[in-house]
């Protein structure tokens, strides 16, 4: 919870990281690399707002057993936006990637958002 909105924290598997790097930037609607969206040394920890950039629904895929869409990231049930393993918009009406809030690692195992 940050500003009364959910935050997604995801520990990416090496396979998911590789999948995120394999996508050519030019094919993205909102081009960003996974490295730009995580902190150095913690590339496996993807922290984003759980708020679809289309109209603000909470995408599915954060909990086990929920649909993750065609790209293995998050799937927004409202209008069908699909995000990849770096939570970047790949398909559907949303204009931007899931927002990465300002945060820093205060210890190797905890972060402070804001």
């Amino acid at each position: 919870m940050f500003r009364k909105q959910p935050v997604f924290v995801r520990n990416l598997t090496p396979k998911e990281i590789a999948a995120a790097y394999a996508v050519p930037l030019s094919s993205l609607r909102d081009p960003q690399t996974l490295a730009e969206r995580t902190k150095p040394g913690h590339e496996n920890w993807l922290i984003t707002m759980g708020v679809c950039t289309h109209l603000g629904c909470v995408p599915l895929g954060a909990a086990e057993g929920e649909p993750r869409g065609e790209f293995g990231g998050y799937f927004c049930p409202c209008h069908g936006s699909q995000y990849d393993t770096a939570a970047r918009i790949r398909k559907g009406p949303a204009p931007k990637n899931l927002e990465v809030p300002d945060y820093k690692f205060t210890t190797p195992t905890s972060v402070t958002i804001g």
Partner: protein
Amino acid sequence: MIRIFAILAGLFFAAGLAWSFLLGASSYISEPPAKTAVEEYHQHPKELQLASDGAFGRFDNEQLQRGFQVYKEVCSNCHSLRYLAFRDLKDLGYNDDEVKAIAAQWSTKQPTFDPKTGDKGERPNVPADHFPLVYYAGQGTPPDLSLITKARHGGPAYVYSLLTGYQDQPAELLKRFPDAKVPEGLHYNPYFASLAIAMPPPLTADGQVSYGDGTKATRDQMAKDVAAFLVWTAEPSLEKRRQLGWAVLGFLIFATVLTYMAYQNVWAGKKGNH
């Protein structure tokens, strides 16, 4: 001039839509969306007939009392009934003393707070109290059941189907959708939206509840009874609403016939609409 602008604006929107359509259709043809496990295996609720169905339906109080017993002995361990008060149970045919006794013996006590000393405590329930909240620490969040039959497609049929729908995950499903394997701690149920429900099967054996009226407490019977009870909790005024509805409709139809005759009378000899 305004028409030229309008035509341009119309063509602009049409072109934007056509562009979306073409891209959408081409990707739909080149890579048709694959069916998901939920789409293939989710089932609509089974048929369920209750005494309260239909425009003339009445509650069957014996069944509601049995359903209340199932709620009390099984469901209430995890599920609240926060919008109901003990006094409401009088609708089911319990008298004042019985309601008092049910409230006093309810296993979850009513929390109290003394604003003077700041002490928190608890006391037995009285008929004026709402059913106390139930807190649940395990996996999943048991929903409040007061409104459950209004809050789900299918209503009581959904409750009944869910309670009797637990089964092993079909091998065929696992073969086709290996990712859809029910995670640890969840249970496969084709009537649940995501197919994997956190609630363990609540009605495990026939005779789990022993009914006072001699009805045989099969799993099917218990599920039906509690579904009927939850129809009542969702809307205790249901019966009253329909009874009043018939009176209102009867009056209105009579009045409408009168207004029609008045209308014909006023317009007699005046030719108007045809």
